[in-house]
């Protein structure tokens, strides 16, 4: 990884963290409502995966702000969406869980656990059919690996040798349920073994994630067929803003925080790429400024007009 890319990943991670902290603050202030799922702690995976899977289509879940921004969405447009504003990426219709930008080959944003996986399979079929080589990446949590949609997708992708990268972001919890209580083992890659090659990485280490995803995409581009990648991660916050998060111990959380992806990356920037305090500060300040801008933009953006309520139900209005 060259220095520029390392800096970029670091910057987007810091930006993501700052963005989430601001979102949290504005949720508590009442500017944002509904379900808000913060990605704090998981930025190492979210940013590196998006950077590594540069070309190709991406599908993900409701815990998506950091991925959306790393993919290229404007923090302003994302924050405005959280604020429910007309200038939001989904014009205030979707909210936190529904960010889409086909121009960036980013397809959300699904609030149904596992629901996006069959969509990603179909997209991968289409890309193969169209002769495009970059493939599709679908990201989901450990909780999604117990649902039928996930398994049907493994089977179809394998039978059809589709250019699809399955990525399980295993943070060990589905809301309050620890994965080992509802699945027979902790690592879900095992479920994919009958169907495809599997890879396991430390999701708290952005560089490892980046390299693994690059490697997987390269294989896919070479016609290898589907691959399953599992990244062990950890969310520092509750599942969503309404989760009291009393089912995990402080120690467990502290162990996670000790491997913080941003801190690891910062250390690497210093040691490997020779960045000093100032260079780091500049990046941090730039990220903070971007988030401040985003909040200011969102706060002053327009409310959608009530007359536009029925926009985009259909392409063609009728009846």
């Amino acid at each position, binding site marked *: 990884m060259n220095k520029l890319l390392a800096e970029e990943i670091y910057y987007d991670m810091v930006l993501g963290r700052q963005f989430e902290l601001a979102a949290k603050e504005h949720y508590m202030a009442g500017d944002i409502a509904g379900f808000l799922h913060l990605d704090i702690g998981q930025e190492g995976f979210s940013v590196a995966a998006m950077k590594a899977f540069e070309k190709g289509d991406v599908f993900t879940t409701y815990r998506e702000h950091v991925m959306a921004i790393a993919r290229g969405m404007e923090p302003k447009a994302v924050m405005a969406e959280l604020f429910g504003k007309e200038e939001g990426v989904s014009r205030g219709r*979707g909210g936190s869980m529904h960010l889409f930008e086909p121009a960036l080959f980013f397809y959300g944003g699904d609030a149904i656990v596992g629901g996006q996986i069959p*969509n990603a399979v179909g997209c991968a079929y289409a890309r193969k059919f169209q002769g495009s080589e970059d493939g599709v990446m679908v990201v989901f949590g450990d909780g999604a690996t117990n649902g039928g949609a996930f398994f049907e997708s493994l089977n179809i992708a394998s039978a059809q040798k589709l250019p699809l990268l399955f990525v399980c972001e295993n943070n060990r919890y589905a809301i309050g349920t620890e994965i080992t209580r509802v699945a027979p083992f902790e690592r879900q890659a095992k479920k994919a073994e009958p169907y495809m090659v599997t890879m396991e990485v430390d999701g708290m280490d952005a560089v490892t994630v980046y390299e693994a995803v690059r490697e997987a995409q390269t294989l896919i581009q070479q016609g290898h067929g589907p691959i399953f990648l599992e990244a062990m991660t950890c969310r520092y916050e509750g599942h969503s803003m309404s989760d009291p998060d009393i089912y995990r111990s402080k120690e467990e959380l502290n162990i996670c925080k000790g491997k913080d992806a941003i801190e690891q990356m910062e250390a690497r920037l210093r040691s490997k790429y020779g960045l000093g305090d100032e260079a780091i500060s500049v990046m941090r300040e730039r990220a903070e400024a971007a988030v401040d801008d985003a909040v200011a933009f969102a706060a002053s953006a327009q409310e959608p007009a009530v007359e536009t309520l029925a926009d985009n139900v259909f392409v063609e209005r009728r009846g």
Partner: protein
Amino acid sequence: MLYREALNRAIDEVMAIDETVVVLGEDVGRYGGSYRVTEGLVAKYGEARLIDTPIAELSIVGNAIGMAMAGLRPVAEIMTANFALLAFDQIINHMPKYRYMSAGKITLPMVVRFPQGVSRQLAAQHSESYEQMLCAVPGLRVLAAGDVNYAYHALKAAMLSDDPVVFIEHELLYTKKGEVDFDAEVDPFKARVVKAGDDITIVSYLKMVDDVMAAVPEIEKKLGKQCEVIDLCSLNPVDYDTLEASVKKTGSIVVVEEDHKTGGYGAQIVSWAAEKMFYSLDEPPLRIAGEDVPIPYNRTLELAAIPTPESIAARIVAWAEGNGA
């Protein structure tokens, strides 16, 4: 030509002109479809465009959605409506919502073909009708082909539309014969006046249109009145203009559907009439529908569970004579 041949022809024609059209479902390829609707197409268009899927309905619709996102125009076949329940998450949570939630950034030009209804003794898990559920979902168009000509034109229109369409077929109609006017311009969203008449408006769709038509001579003879028979064709949106003109003329409305009376789709039409046409109605509307029971295997019971030409005629005669419904 047969209804299934009309459907086949519609798919064939659109596939010929648009290479982004793909068909997917169980046994739609090599087997030609369990009702032979896609017969012969795999030989013409290959297995990449006629995709035999595993028995995984959630994926059939879910994959079709992803294909549509990527720029294809998929036609997904569900073998029998009951199995579509396994795909309801994709049909209801995804297919009609992506466009709205993304403020129009995502468009899903796709069709789900949906064979349904009480066939012959297939019992409770293979005999249902789900139009009442599908029509309750904003973001879906729901067409119901009760006629061969309409089947051809409406399926083509559905395949060419940029909105997601559920295209309902009735399993007993596949071998129905009819003429197709290939040059006609058919608006798939317009109701079809199957028979004009001045006295009683009878609204129906799918196979019940035929059963109503079979009942009409008896009704007209017994009552000395003329029936106007309307095939709704588009169940969502409904062509209320055609209904309104008819109700204004006849002062009455009867809705005939195969589905169970409780919860059945016909309530929508009667409720519309009560709200909007109240002052045009000379007598209470009448809903004729199936009984509130799962469909039994035995043929006598099966027929007792749904309207038949005989029961339709008897019910309408009794109602018109003021002997209640």
